């Protein structure tokens, strides 16, 4: 297990190097000049040249790339061209908020999604299953933007139950609407996958055996059916949680949530290279780490993967 984990950790380096390189190159391929964003609407060429020189943008691409890698190796993500603040400092400030939103959304998606999936797989009430699955289809298809506005309209404007937007210094009330909005698509997918998994597992030999040996139905469901149905759910949770950690642009924008997503989008608009590169690298790191954890969790949930690996 430890050796396998070590191997996986080593494999992260080429992945991250690839991400860094692609993010770096993309910035120079897309049109747009960072110094134009810094200079505003009225500028002179001489000042632009001086800025380019100062930021090192006048050097050959290879030199810029190597010096960027050099800085990365020293753990330096650079300084934003626009705000002139260290990228790492801003990420440190924004990441906890993104993490809070991602964790809340994932928790809601997992709890509500598996519950809905289990309910809809309940054979005794077949119409409920069809209804819930139709509902989850809507859930998968509903645009985040529209859902967010709908929830604001209902819970903030009509019912005055929750604040329409903002981080509120981390208060739970401010977290509810964005977390529910963000969780929706994932919740619906989890519900569908759980239902399919449960129905599959219910028909398998080991469940029939468990029932035949007189195990209580509740235990059969929990120990045998649900545990097997959970493997694909963990994959979904891992992927979604990993991508939420990079910030969820739409949800953050609608709810004025000061997370990483908006930071990156603004940086892209202004061609703020150090921010884009630093944030993309950070997102990639989150994503691969979460994926690694998901892979490890398979080993805990599913004994077969343990055997295959060893």
């Amino acid at each position, binding site marked *: 297990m430890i050796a396998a984990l070590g191997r996986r950790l080593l494999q992260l380096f080429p992945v991250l190097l690839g991400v860094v390189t692609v993010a770096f190159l993309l910035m120079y391929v897309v049109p747009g*000049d960072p110094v134009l964003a810094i200079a*505003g609407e009225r500028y002179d060429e001489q000042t632009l040249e001086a800025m380019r020189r100062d930021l090192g943008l006048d050097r050959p691409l290879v030199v810029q790339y190597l010096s960027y890698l050099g800085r990365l190796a020293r753990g330096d993500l650079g300084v934003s061209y626009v705000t002139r603040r260290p990228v790492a400092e801003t990420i440190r400030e924004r990441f906890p908020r993104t993490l809070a939103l991602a964790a809340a959304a994932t928790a809601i998606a997992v709890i509500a999604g598996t519950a809905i999936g289990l309910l809809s797989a309940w054979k005794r009430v077949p119409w409920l299953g069809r209804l819930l699955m139709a509902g989850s289809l809507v859930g998968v298809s509903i645009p985040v933007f529209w859902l967010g506005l709908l929830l604001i309209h209902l819970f903030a*404007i009509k019912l005055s139950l929750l604040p329409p937007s903002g981080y509120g210094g981390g208060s739970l*009330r401010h977290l509810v609407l964005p977390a529910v909005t963000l969780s929706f698509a994932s919740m619906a997918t989890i519900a569908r996958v759980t239902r399919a998994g449960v129905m599959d597992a219910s028909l398998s030999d080991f469940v029939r055996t468990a029932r035949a040996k007189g195990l209580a139905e509740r235990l059969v469901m929990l120990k045998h059916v649900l545990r097997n149905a959970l493997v694909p759910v963990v994959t979904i949770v891992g992927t979604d949680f990993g991508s939420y950690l990079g910030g969820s642009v739409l949800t953050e924008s609608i709810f004025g949530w000061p997370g990483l997503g908006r930071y990156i989008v603004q940086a892209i608009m202004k061609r703020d290279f150090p921010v884009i590169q630093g944030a993309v690298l950070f997102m990639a790191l989150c994503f691969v780490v979460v994926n690694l954890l998901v892979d490890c969790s398979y080993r805990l949930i599913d004994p077969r993967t343990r055997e295959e690996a060893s």
Partner: protein
Amino acid sequence: MRPAVLPALVLAAMLAAGCGGEDAPPVVRLAFETEPATSDPAFAVDFSSGTIASLVHAGLVSFDEAGAVQPDLASSWRVTGDGLEWRFTLAPRRFADGSPVTSAAIVSSFRRLLSPETQSPRWWVLEPVAGAAAFHGGGSWESVGIEAPDDSTVVFQLAQPAAHFLSLLAMPAAGVVSTDRADSLGAGYGRRPLGAGVWRIGTWREGDVVELEPNPCGWPRPAVRGLRFRILPEAMTRIAEFETGGLDLLEVPRAELEMWRTAGAGLLSAEELRVVYIGFRLDRPPFDDPRVRRALNHAIDVETIIARLLFGAGRRARGVVPAALRDWPEPTERYPYDPARAVRLLEKAGLSDGFEMAIWQRDNPEGGRILESVQAYLAAVNVRVRLVTREWGAFKEAIANGSADAFYLDWFADYPDPENFLSPLFHSRNRGGGGNRTGYANAAVDSLIDLAATLTGAERSACCREAERIVYEDAPWLFLWFPVRYEVVSPRLEGYRIPAIFNGQRWTGVTLEGVGE
């Protein structure tokens, strides 16, 4: 597992925190669409940064709500008859840490703005000062015409007369910074500024909120206890916040205007110091032919576009200077909507089969609707338009490097003066980055603008008027409109008016109902 887990979660969250809305705090609650990049006057180039920079820093002079220049750090000033020497007498004022704002501190702040090491994109605010451009280009400071003969006097020697010099000094970039603080913090100054403005920064939570509190040494004293700027990028969110009492002021998006007009209460409006136009690259055929440009101006029914697509929130631009800035009559209409005339003009220019062109725009739904209608109007005179949409960064670069033949753009005043429209947009010296994106060059216009800078009063107006008339006739643009801005205020906010120029509102004249000193 219970099915009611989601509603239960929501309910639990609400119970944990109490369901009632919090009491409205004794601060004015406002919103920015984008977070200020900085509060450093030398680097504030966008709206929100300029706003914060001006609230935290005082200049020698500042704009009042109506856009007039008023005393600030300087209590009075006089200018010599030749318009070359400006002498400012300082009021006794202090930075927010209590240290005095001496003439030496002010000169030091201006030196920082001009220094090539600072690399301020706004150094040009002091360009009229003798030797300023040379110093910025690497020359010596000794030859720059800024000096402090005693502790309470600052004197500027200009290279040539500049009637708009006072307006330049009221811009955010001319705000006086404590250079001691700026030198010690470097780039960190943007978040921890030290100025002598009405306000100082209380809290700045990245991407979330910027809270200002009264500067204990500031002047004048505001009646409200603070300003809270929340960062809310989405218009719909800002509306929801306003409707639920979370904001005291809302800029009404044009598409929502009808609703607020019928609601009535608290709706304010003001014509912005901004002009919207479609610019042509004048060095490219067929736009090098004025007949073609005039034909395009005749081909579009701008009034109808304003009525239908802007919901009336604009005034047809006949000329380039907003009404509030001119004391001369608007040029007479030269381009009434007349497609037949447009066709005739195109025929005269040898384009009886019409032609194809591309109009570039930044990614923006309203702009998209407007340009689709422009496209349809031009199609009626056989000009086939392709719309090219790019996001802001790529759009700006396309205009800067000349790959856009024609572009839909606007120009915001930096300071309320006709010079700020005529010179950057049409003086040949400002072609390219200076603001003249079409590459317009007309020697008569250049000399009128230069002459106007040396004059005052009616003579200056006459020059500006003539320059505007020539530009209007030459039609380097498709002249569109001067937008009207609409805002609604909450019932508790009193004494607010829309400022003529964005940094003219310092929130010293507003009060909040039920909130005392």
